Structure formats: C-alpha cells, structure tokens
C-alpha cells in the first residue's frame, strides 16, 4: 500500500469511527437496531455541503448538518415510541424518506465542494501537506468525539440510558423516564453519524445522494471488530475500540481490494462487508454450539 493510499485509509477509518460510535449507542447501549444512519450520514453531508456552497461558515454548516441528522434520529424514535412501529421498520421508513429529502436539500444528486472553504481551510496556513492535515483533523474529531461519548455514558444520565437498554422495567422502577432516554440516544447516535457525513463531504470534496448506502453495516462491522479486540468493562476502551475497529476494517478492505490475485473490485465492497458482519455475528453462536456439542460428546 502506498503512503498516500494508507493515509486515505486512515482518514476514512477515523471518519467512520464516529459512525461506529453512533451505531454502538443504538445497537449496544439502547438495544435499538437503527438503520436511519444510512440516511442521516447523507443528510449530514448534504446539509453541510449545500450550506457551504451558499456561503455559510463551514463550522456553522457542519453544526447544522449534525443537528439535522439528530432530528432524523428523533423521527425514528417518535415513530417507534409514539406509534409502536417496530424499531427496525421505523428506521427503514425514516431512511427511505431521507433519500428524497437529501435530494431535495441538494437540489441535485450531488454537490461538489472542491473549490469551497471547509473546516480545514483555517489550518492551511500551518503549511502541513493537505493529505496529512486531513488525517490529523479527522483523528482529532474522532478522538474528541470518543472522549465525549465515553464521558457521557459514565454520567448519571448516561448510566440511566444504559439501564434503559438493559432492563426497562428496572429502569422505570428506579424513576428513569424510558422514552426520553431513547429520544436522546437516537438523536446523539444520528448526530454523530451526520457529523461523520459532514466531515466526509469536506475531506472528499463532495456530497452525493448515494454516499450513505451501507453505512449501518460498515458501522456495525467496526463495532464488532473493536469488541473482539478487547474484552473489557471500561466504557472508554469500548468506545475507543470503535475507532480502532473502523480503521482495521478499512485496512482489511483496502488490502483485499489491492490484492490483485483475489480479483475483487471496489463494487464488491458491500458484499464483502455483509459477509464479514454476518460471520462476526454467527461466529460466537457457532462457537457456543461447538462447545456444547463437545461437552456432550465427552460426557457420553
């Protein structure tokens, strides 16, 4: 792998580290499988890119893009909590609606940001080559994001949210308002994913209506890889392992794509990822079954 390609891999790994944290919040903390992220990643990018093009300050544009994505999460939570629509289905509805909304926001299938100012513009004066600067910037964002998420989950409020995902009845018996925690959790999760979308648009120079496809699976892959690296109860380590998992996932993917003898094309990525995640989900179960079978065999 060339240095240039490696830096690109790192950059995208850090950005999707934010996605992975968002997915971790819903799938693991709240036990609310949320597919909204495929749409909210694009929404964050679309809103930010569109606002930058019409002259907004990139930082303000990114903030608004993040907030828009957080709102998408609230819509999913509302569909689920208010109308009892199954969480998966509620999130698919929001995701589908977002496809249209994203096109409307941009007014066309994609928006170019090549010549526009971005969050990185103020740092150009430092004289660091752009390809390094980008990695440093997204790494900074991901690590700060991770620290904030880990801190949040260790606060009273965050602990209450974890209780909601673990045992609703217990949470309620201890005075925790369950629905409120789900709203906040989904807003946070999708906000993180939207922020990742906004960063992606600015470092890659475009927002595109299809850029969010597969976001959920990639995020989940990163979470699972991260979890398999460390067995720990420390929230900080778990959250940070989302970033590491995301980077490792990208490295693995780019190695697979670069290994000519394997004959993979870039368009094979989604299939590869889906297979990888399926294996990761299936493996612990299989291992348990093997163990059970072995134990039985020994007893006979």
């Amino acid at each position, binding site marked *: 792998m060339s240095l240039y390609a490696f830096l690109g891999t790192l950059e995208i790994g850090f950005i999707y580290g934010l996605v992975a944290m968002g997915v971790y919040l819903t799938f693991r903390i709240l036990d609310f499988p949320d597919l909204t992220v495929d749409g909210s990643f694009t929404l964050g990018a679309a809103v930010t890119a569109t606002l930058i093009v019409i002259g907004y300050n990139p930082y303000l544009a990114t903030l608004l893009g993040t907030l828009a994505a957080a709102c998408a999460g609230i819509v999913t939570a509302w569909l689920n909590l208010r109308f009892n629509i199954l969480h998966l289905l509620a999130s698919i509805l929001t995701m589908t609606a977002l496809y249209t909304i994203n096109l409307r926001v941009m007014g066309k299938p994609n928006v170019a940001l090549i010549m526009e100012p971005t969050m990185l513009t103020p740092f150009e004066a430092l004289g660091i080559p752009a390809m390094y600067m980008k990695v440093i910037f997204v790494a900074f964002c991901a690590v700060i994001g991770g620290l904030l998420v880990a801190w949040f989950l260790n606060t009273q*409020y965050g602990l209450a949210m974890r209780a909601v995902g673990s045992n609703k009845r217990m*949470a309620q018996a*201890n005075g925790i308002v369950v629905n409120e925690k789900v709203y906040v959790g989904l807003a946070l999760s999708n906000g993180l994913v939207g922020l990742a979308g906004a960063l992606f648009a600015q470092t890659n120079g475009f927002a595109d209506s299809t850029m969010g496809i597969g976001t959920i699976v990639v995020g989940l892959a990163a979470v699972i890889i991260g979890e398999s690296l460390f067995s720990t109860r420390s929230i900080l380590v778990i959250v940070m392992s989302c970033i590491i998992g995301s980077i490792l996932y990208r490295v693995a993917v780019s190695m697979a794509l670069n290994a000519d003898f394997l004959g993979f094309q870039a368009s094979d990525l989604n299939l590869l990822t889906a297979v990888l995640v399926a294996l990761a989900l299936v493996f612990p179960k299989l291992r348990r079954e093997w163990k059970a079978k072995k134990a039985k065999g020994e007893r006979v």
Partner: protein
Amino acid sequence: MIRCENLHVTFNHGLPTEKLALRGVDLTIPSGEFVTVIGSNGAGKSTLLNTIAGDIESTRGKILFSDRDVTNLPATKRTKDIARVFQDPLAGTCGNLTVEENMALAYGRGKRSNLSLALNDNLRKIFKEQLSRLNLGLENRLGAEMGLLSGGQRQSVSLLMSALQPSSILLLDEHTAALDPKTAALIMDISSQIIEEKQLTVMMVTHSMRQALDHGSRTIMLHEGKIIFDLSGDQRAGYEVKDLLQLFAQARNDGEELDDDKLLLGE
C-alpha cells in the same frame, strides 16, 4: 400511608379475553405498617402492587399516598415514595451493568439524573459498606458484571438497592420465592432489618403462610380481585397456618376451584 379507594383494574377491556383483575379494593395502610398479602394464583396480588406502583393504570378508583392523590401519576414519578423488589431476581437489576453501576442507579432513584459522573469513591464506599451486610463477599466484587452473579446474590443486591434511597413505601412481590431456603431466609432477615431501620410502610406478597404470619402486623387475603379477609391485632396473633389454610378452603368453596393445592401447604 397508602390508601386505595374502590380500586378496579380490568385487562383487555372489551375483548373476549377481558379480565377483571381487581374488583373494588378498599385498603388503608397507616405509615409504618407491615402488611403481608396472600391469595391463590391469579387472585390479583401482583396486580394490586403494580397498580400502587403505577405500572398498571386503574380503570376505576383512587390511590393516595398520605392524602396525596397519585392515581394519575406515572410510575416513574412515584419512585420517590416507592421502592420495590420483584419476584424474578433478573427483573430488579441490569445484567450487563456492574454491581456498582446498578447500585448507582438505585442511589439516584426518584432524583433527576444529571451530567455528573455516576460513580465516585464516596459512593463506592457506601456501596461496599452496604454489601458487606450480606456476608456474601460481594463487597469485593463492585466491578463485576451483575449477570455473573447467582440469582440469590442478585436478589440480595436488589434488596439493598431498594433501601439506598429513603422512601416511605416498600413493595415486595414474592421476593424470596425464586431462592433456595437458606438464601430465602437470609433475604427475609435483611428485609426485616431494613424495614425496621427505616420505618417503612410495607406490602409483602407471599405464598408461604408461615411467612405471612411471622412477619408484619397485618395479613390480607385477596380472592378474585377482592380483599376477602383482613387480619390484625389479637385475632391475627391467635392464628396458625392451619387456620389460614381453612380460610383458603372457604374461599374455594365460595368461588371456583383453586388451581393448585400444593402452594397452600408451602411453608
């Protein structure tokens, strides 16, 4: 004080499966009284406790805590007054949080959670102190995942958790039923200690006639959603397990068949 006035609860209202679980319960429990609640399966004991806690909405009637009408108050807002321990040891704690995290949650019961850290050394000291009362060695396992503890250990921790925050009412729904006799006795012991210490108003559901007579100062029997017997004072003092069984038999003769005789003989 807990007061229920003409409390009715109907499940699946208007459906073929409609079930009148409570049919006009009138009950006043003065502050500091310990009431044991008995009755056959399906009599409405859990429903009564869950309605008082706010998990179930009453279809008719009123609930008051010390003259404050709480009938329309959601469960989470009643937790300032009520602590509970459930029958299922898994229900009262979060399996994938640690012992100390579970205790921190209970420590915040009834208070608004904020953005300060949930755990600190001061709290850990309090939790350790409490856990050491159990003599189960749990005071050295603050950081262990709750799911790794045995059912009895989890139930013991649930019980301690119910007492971490001051509350006036304690609702115990067969909280020793899932435990082996030795652990059940330990839990009952600690329950009595806590109740005494904190001068709590208690409702304890049990299927053990022995437990029902040995603890508290009053026993009520529910049958088909109604209180059919209310024992206290000298009358109760003169009662034996066999007398209670007689009452059960009477209830059965008046009404439908009881499904299970075994539970009546349970000690």
